């Protein structure tokens, strides 16, 4: 059971995991649209801003696509195995499945559509339910990172401290690039 929760890639990878992952990502984007939950970075989740439906899908694609490209390049450089693009793409898509819970939790956070400008505004936003659902979403983000780490280990055959170091480095690079891409997406369309 623990393996299925944290490392399902031992059993499912490639095309199968790609289709499962893409289907759940589409569902996450749709739920995110209704709960106003944005995934505006590889491991980011923000609630409140109201946008058109396509933006939620673009965010999912950018997050996943950036992770796939960065981790595939890392795997190609450092792995001694002949890794396949479809395995990296499939496992990384499936690793994002828990984000759907964060999108659902977004209904409970109910953050305002505008940035708070004063301390009073901030205090109005930080309600007990905001903190509770915020912490809950953090749990799912950590779970997603654990899944991504195992996806990287299995798809690129990485082990030990090398796997951990390269994963952290690649994740930071992917996060920065995805943030830039999403910034460009919004700035070009507004």
């Amino acid at each position, binding site marked *: 059971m623990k393996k299925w929760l944290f490392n399902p890639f031992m*059993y*499912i*990878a490639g095309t199968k995991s790609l289709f499962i992952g893409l289907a759940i990502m589409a569902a996450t984007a749709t739920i995110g649209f209704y709960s106003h939950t944005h995934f505006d970075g590889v491991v980011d989740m923000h609630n409140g801003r109201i946008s058109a439906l396509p933006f939620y899908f673009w965010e999912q694609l950018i997050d996943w696509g950036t992770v796939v490209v960065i981790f595939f390049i890392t795997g190609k450089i450092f792995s*001694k*195995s002949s890794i396949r693009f479809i*395995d990296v793409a499939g*496992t990384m898509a499936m690793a994002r499945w828990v984000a759907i819970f964060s999108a659902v939790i977004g209904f409970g956070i109910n953050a305002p559509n505008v940035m708070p400008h004063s301390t009073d505004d901030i205090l109005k936003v930080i309600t007990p339910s905001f903190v509770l659902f915020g912490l809950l979403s953090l749990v799912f983000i950590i779970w997603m990172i654990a899944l991504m780490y195992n996806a990287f280990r299995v798809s690129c055959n990485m082990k030990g401290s090398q796997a951990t170091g390269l994963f952290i480095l690649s994740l930071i690079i992917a996060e920065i690039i995805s943030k830039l891409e999403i910034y460009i997406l919004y700035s070009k369309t507004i």
Partner: protein
Amino acid sequence: MQKNLPHICPSCSSTLKVKSLVCEKCATEVTGVFNLPLLASLTQQEQDFIVAFVKSSGSLKIMAQQLGLSYPTVRNLLDDIILKIETNQKNQK
């Protein structure tokens, strides 16, 4: 009880050699110093994997289906065995 063939010296951790072979039927014994077959240095699980790999004509996809594992998991297992064999080969030289 299934006995595992030891290949590492319990005293100094060097690779063991075969000193004698015996015919169970007529008790003829051959003595000398022979290298252990390369695959004998692998664990039973790794040997079973190699047998399954050969039986599936070297198809990792078929093996993945048979073992109920994903393709990269099976490839990783194979790569680990290859690495172990290469290390053992270097040590035997």
